[in-house]
C-alpha cells in the first residue's frame, strides 16, 4: 500500500476461492493431526501411520519423560527443604568425616534395565573426593555421570549416548551424591555393572 501498488478488488482472490481454500485447510489440518501431530506429541495413533513414520515412538518417549519429571516434582514437593536443617548436616559431617579417614574398598553394584527403563547408582562424596570407576553394560545405554547437591541442584560431569562402558575417575565437585544415570533405549533388557574404588560411602541404586 505504502511501498507497493494497491490491487483492485477483481485482482484479489474471490470469496468462493477463499472459502474453498479454508475447507481444504481444515481437511489438511485434520489429516496432519491424526497422522503426524497426535502421534508425535501424545503417542495417540488412530490409524497407525504415526508408528510407520517413527513419530509414535517420539510421543511415547516424551510421555515417559513427562511422567518421570512429574514423579520427580511430586517427590520433591513431599520432602521440601531437606537441606535446611542443621542436624542432618551435622550428623552427615560426622559420618562422612569417618569415611574420609577410611577410604572405601573397591565396591560393585549392578542394575538391570528393561527396554525404556532408566535408573541411577550413586555414592555419597565430599567435595574434591575422587573415585576410580569402571562400568560396563550388556547392551547400549545412554548415560549421564552427574552429581546432586543436597538442595537438589544437579551438574553433569560426562554424558554419552549408546555406550557400552566407560572408565575414569569421578571427582566430586561438591558435597553430595555423585554417580550415574543409565537409560536403556534398546529392545532387550540390559544389565549395567559398575565397579568403584576410592573416597566415598554408600554406593547404591537410587530408585
Amino acid at each position, binding site marked *: 500500500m505504502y511501498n507497493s501498488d494497491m490491487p483492485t478488488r477483481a485482482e484479489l482472490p474471490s470469496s468462493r476461492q477463499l472459502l474453498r481454500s*479454508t475447507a481444504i485447510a481444515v481437511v489438511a489440518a485434520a489429516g496432519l493431526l491424526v497422522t503426524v501431530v497426535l502421534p508425535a506429541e501424545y503417542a495417540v495413533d488412530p490409524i497407525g501411520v504415526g508408528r510407520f513414520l517413527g513419530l509414535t515412538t517420539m510421543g511415547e518417549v516424551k510421555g515417559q519423560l513427562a511422567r518421570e519429571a512429574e514423579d520427580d516434582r511430586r517427590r520433591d514437593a513431599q520432602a521440601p527443604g531437606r537441606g535446611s536443617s542443621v542436624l*542432618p548436616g551435622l550428623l552427615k559431617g560426622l559420618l562422612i568425616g569417618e569415611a574420609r579417614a577410611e577410604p572405601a574398598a573397591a565396591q560393585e553394584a549392578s542394575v538391570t534395565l528393561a527396554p525404556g527403563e532408566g535408573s541411577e547408582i550413586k555414592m555419597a562424596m565430599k567435595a574434591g573426593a575422587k573415585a576410580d570407576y569402571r562400568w560396563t553394560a550388556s547392551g547400549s545405554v545412554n548415560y549421564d555421570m552427574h552429581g546432586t547437591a543436597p538442595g537438589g541442584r544437579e551438574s553433569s560431569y560426562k554424558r554419552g549416548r549408546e555406550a557400552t562402558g566407560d572408565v575414569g575417575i569421578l571427582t566430586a565437585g561438591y558435597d553430595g551424591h555423585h554417580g550415574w544415570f543409565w537409560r536403556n533405549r534398546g529392545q532387550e533388557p540390559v544389565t549395567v555393572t559398575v565397579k568403584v574404588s576410592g573416597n566415598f560411602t554408600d554406593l547404591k541404586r537410587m530408585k
Partner: protein
Amino acid sequence: MVRPCIRGCASAAHVTLPRALLLAAILLALCDAALAHGVTEGDKGYIQEISGIHLVPFVYLGAKHMVTGYDHLLFLAGVIFFLYSAKDIGLYVSLFALGHSTTMLLGVYFGIGINAYLIDAVIGLSVVYKALDNLGAFQRWFGVQPNTKAATLVFGLFHGFGLATKIQDYDVARDGLVPNLLAFNVGVEIGQLLALGAILILMGFWRRSGGFFRHAYAANVAMMSAGFVLVGMQITGFFVAS
C-alpha cells in the same frame, strides 16, 4: 574441617562403622527427594535420548519449530502484508527461506555460538523494521526505499542464526547430524508453507473486506509494537537470566 564432638572428642572415634553406615543409610533414605535424576522433558528430552539418523522425527521437529515460532511468523506476515500475486509471495518467501536455511545449517554444523537472547532481539528488530517499511517510513523519513528483496534475505540470515541457537541447545547427537539437520530444514520449510497458507487465507478474507485498507496502517503499527515487545523481552532475558 572441624569435626563436631558429641560426648567429648575421644568419643567421636567410638562411633562404630556398622552404626555409622546405618545412620548414613537412614539419612540418605530421608534425603531421597533430592537424589532423583533431573529429567529433561519434551522435544529437547527426546532429542537427548536418541542418536543416529531419524529423518521423519526431525522433519516434524523442524515444522513444529516454525509453526510455533511466533517471531518468525510475525516477520513472514509483515513480508507478505502488501504482496498480492503468487509470484511475488513465492519469491519473497523463497528469499527468506534461503536466508534462514543457510545460517541455520552452517550455525549448527560449525557450532557457531551466539547468545540466544541477542539473536532473538535482532529477530524482534526485524519485525519492527518490516512494519516500518510497510508504513512507508523509510521513504518519508530518509527519502529511500531500501530494497525489500535484499532486506528479506538479510533478515532471513538472522532468523536462521536464531533457529541454530535453539537447535544447539537441544544437544543433537553428532552421529547422524547432517541428515538430521537437513531433515529439520525440510521440516522448517514445510512448517513455513503451512503457516503461510493459514496467514494468506486470513489475509485473503480481510483484504476483500473494506476493513483491510482502512486498518492496514493500524495493523502495521500493532505489528511494530509486537516487535518492540519481542526486543524488550529478549534484552531483559539477556540481563536477567543466569
